């Protein structure tokens, strides 16, 4: 395969809204029930499918030290609903070819279901039951927790699974944006079912949630159904918590994670980024495309095409509602670790030293516009977009003004923005590899902290 992606921050970059030429958000209806529940309805009739999702403004930032609590609460919705056991819910979904999943992020939690339009009556009711009538079975929780801890342990077998989370933890420090969404073995050990129930009671309330339905339905009928199913939901919204400011790093640091059988070093380098509502968000994406978000990007060209040091090198912004980070990431065999790190930094510095020229900017603008529409092609993709916009309080303009924002970016502005938006000083490094062979040289990049891949705590 020609290209792969690396790390969690990169995945965040890929799902960040980027828009192209003719694209506007397809028409949708917005309504609010008396209990405060926000509803969005978007009709899409190409295939007879419906995607429904409930998005809640609660995520890993609300874990309060119990890393993983928001994520586990989302998963626990599937332990049984109303009169149905976990197994009965699973069997009912499978029989209809429906898919149910929970996804938790730093600032939002989403429960989503995809099903055939002909099953709307039955499965929308089931969706309501899963969301609003969870049994939180203690027996299921015990089984789940045991398995979940095993999986957290297993995830440490692969550097790619952990490097992104470690970077966020390193960069944000104690700030809640650094909380690992999946949690940590030591914190999950302490979570019990009453913590999950409390978290649910506090955050899963109608005026802290949005219900989004996209697909092949009759708008009048579905409104009636949703009012009937969700109109009686009660609960008080949690108070808006104000996040503290992120402390800027005043020196470079290196987290060296030892994996004694590693044959390569996986690394991430980065620093301060931008928040999701930043006025220059779109421009930053265009500039980053040039640096590290397409095949001919500077980083991939230098580290892969010109030198064969790696299979792929990337960069990207990972954005939250009030702050964000920026990272460069790649991997290379142990022996070429520092050659690759130095080349990555040297290439990154080209942004300041050489700057962006007119031809490269023109190409990047064409690329981001051309690659946009397929990101919002399916009902599921559109539902996710609406959910993210609601949760992070983003307006339609992030989509509808995209073309104009891309078009208006000129060379002068792009080079000015490099200086404002990309971190140059006090970069942070996470290196996962064979410590005995890279420890000494790693010290040159900043204050070193060493840990073991099997035993570290976030």
């Amino acid at each position, binding site marked *: *395969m*020609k290209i792969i992606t690396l790390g969690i921050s990169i995945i965040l970059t890929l799902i960040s809204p980027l828009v*192209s030429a*003719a694209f506007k958000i397809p028409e949708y209806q917005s309504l609010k029930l008396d209990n405060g529940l926000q509803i969005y309805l978007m009709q899409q*009739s*190409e*295939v*007879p*499918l419906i995607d429904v999702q409930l998005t809640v403004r609660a995520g890993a930032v609300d874990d309060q030290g119990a890393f993983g609590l928001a994520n586990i609460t989302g998963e626990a919705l599937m332990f049984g609903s109303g009169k149905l056991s976990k*197994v009965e819910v*699973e069997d009912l*979904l499978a*029989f*209809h*070819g*429906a898919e149910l999943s929970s996804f938790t992020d730093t600032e939002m939690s989403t429960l989503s279901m*995809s099903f*055939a*339009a002909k099953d709307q009556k039955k499965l929308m009711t089931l969706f309501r039951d899963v969301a609003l009538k969870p049994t939180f079975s203690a027996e299921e929780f015990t089984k789940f927790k*045991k*398995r979940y801890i*095993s*999986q957290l*342990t*297993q995830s*440490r*077998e*692969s*550097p790619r*699974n952990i490097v992104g989370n470690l970077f966020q933890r390193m960069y944000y420090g104690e700030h809640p944006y650094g909380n690992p969404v999946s949690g940590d073995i030591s914190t999950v050990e302490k979570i019990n079912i009453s913590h999950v129930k409390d978290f649910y009671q506090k955050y899963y309330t109608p005026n802290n949630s949005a219900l989004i339905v996209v697909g092949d339905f009759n708008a009048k009928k579905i409104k009636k159904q949703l009012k009937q199913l969700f109109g009686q939901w009660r609960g008080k919204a949690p108070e808006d918590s104000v996040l503290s400011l992120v402390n800027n790093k005043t020196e470079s640091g290196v987290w060296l994670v030892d*994996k004694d*059988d*590693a*044959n*390569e070093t*996986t690394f991430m380098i980065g620093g301060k980024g931008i928040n999701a509502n930043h006025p220059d968000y779109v421009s930053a994406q265009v500039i980053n495309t040039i640096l590290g978000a*397409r*095949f*001919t990007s500077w980083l991939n*060209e230098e580290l892969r*095409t*010109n*030198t*064969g*040091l*790696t*299979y792929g090198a990337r960069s990207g912004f990972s954005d939250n509602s009030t702050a964000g980070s920026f990272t460069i990431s790649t*991997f290379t*065999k142990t022996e070429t670790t520092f050659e690759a790190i130095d080349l990555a930094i040297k290439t990154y510095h080209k942004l300041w030293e050489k700057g962006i020229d007119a031809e490269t900017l*023109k190409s990047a603008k*064409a*690329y981001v*516009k*051309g*690659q946009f529409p*397929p990101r919002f*092609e*399916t*009902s599921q993709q559109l539902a996710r977009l609406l959910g993210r916009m609601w949760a992070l309080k983003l307006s339609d303009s992030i989509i509808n003004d995209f073309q104009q924002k891309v078009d208006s970016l000129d060379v002068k502005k792009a080079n000015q923005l490099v200086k404002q938006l990309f971190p140059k000083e006090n970069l942070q490094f996470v290196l996962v590899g064979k410590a005995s062979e890279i420890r000494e040289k790693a010290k040159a990049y900043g204050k070193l902290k060493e840990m073991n891949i*099997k035993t570290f705590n976030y």
Partner: protein
Amino acid sequence: MKQTLLLISFCLVMVFMSMAEVNAATRKSDVKSFTLSNGMTILVVEDQSIPNANMYLFWKVGSRNEVPGITGLSHFFEHMMFNGAKKYGPKQFDKVMEANGGANNAYTTENLTVYTNWFPSDSIEVMFDLEADRIQHLAIDEKMVESERGVVTSERSTGLENSNVRMIMEEVKGAAFRAHPYSWSVIGHQSDIDSWTLQDLKDFHRTYYAPNNAFVVIAGDVKLSQVKKLAKKYWEPIPAQPAPQKVRTVEPEQRGERRVYVQKSSVTSPNIMLAYHVPATSSDDYYPLEMLSNILGNGDSSRLIRSLIDEQQLATSIFTYFPKSFDPNLFYVYAVAAKDVSAEKLEKAVVKEINKVIKEGVTQGELEKEKNKAQVNFYRTISTINGKANTLGTYALYFGDYSKLFSAVEDMQNVTVEDIKRVASTYLRKKNRTVGILAAEEDSQEEDL
């Protein structure tokens, strides 16, 4: 890409539901096809839902066409096709494509090499030009070959570093096949990556990258007449070549269980892989095996997942993998042990579930469920232009006719509970399997199963 294929179980099938009448889902009659005089066949699906289109080029070459000494060459070629031709020199393929708003990728399997271009539909002519140049005039530059060896070595190494499946599968395939080229991994042996020659590459390109060895699907905001015109202009002048030699080797029948063991100290609980020889996709047993694969290991309500993960808590993850294949290949079961569960215990529990199907068969309800899932999954697949292009090409090549995609659910309707029991007892036998174990401890006598 093989990694991704392993994690996703394909059940791309359909039925004409009554609701299909009212929506715009692609039907058989929406797919148009034509063949150029040089033997290149092109399918076109017009779809105006987004202002984009794609171009999927399926080349009938994969690791099954290799021999010792050039293992991994098909995959390496997938990389070399981006490294410069006559009109568009080194780096230009990607630079020109991206400047025109396009992006691309490619993947190689045991059977096929597939190139994918995704672009705003008004850039379509550039795509034809870029492809024509590299198909007809690929420049195999020595310097690019050397740099690309490093890239592929890194790809191989990062796969082994990060994926237990890759590591164990390489050994299992090597043991399950002692004659047929499915024996080696798609990425190939490191020693071959280090040493193939320029002449190997030139011969390979001439033999396999001939228009008569390709199958193309274009889906999206395009017109059939426009595609025809461009195909004639850019692709028809490329001369056909003699058909590549057939793969002659047939894997001899396996007559007893084979076992392999891999030690990796960073593994935290044992991983096991069971692989059974099964027939090619063209066999009548394809759908019974596909449904058996899903009944056993796809979804929370499947037998292995329900029993071993949920009820017995012996495993943290399980999946089955039954790839489409030109030649007889393998039916895989993969499981990761829960904390403190031994490989031996896990393997016994997997085999017990398989034996239950052999002895008692499956239920009518399980069969019904698989048919319903197939219907809905079909719609998920064709909800994107990429899903359409990839699936149509896949059906055309493995079943010999793209329209098999549209009759797949009918074909599944004919499968009975007796068929499932029959294929389970025919193929999922001890003497026909290879078992692989990946664990942190050294393989020692005391640890033998």
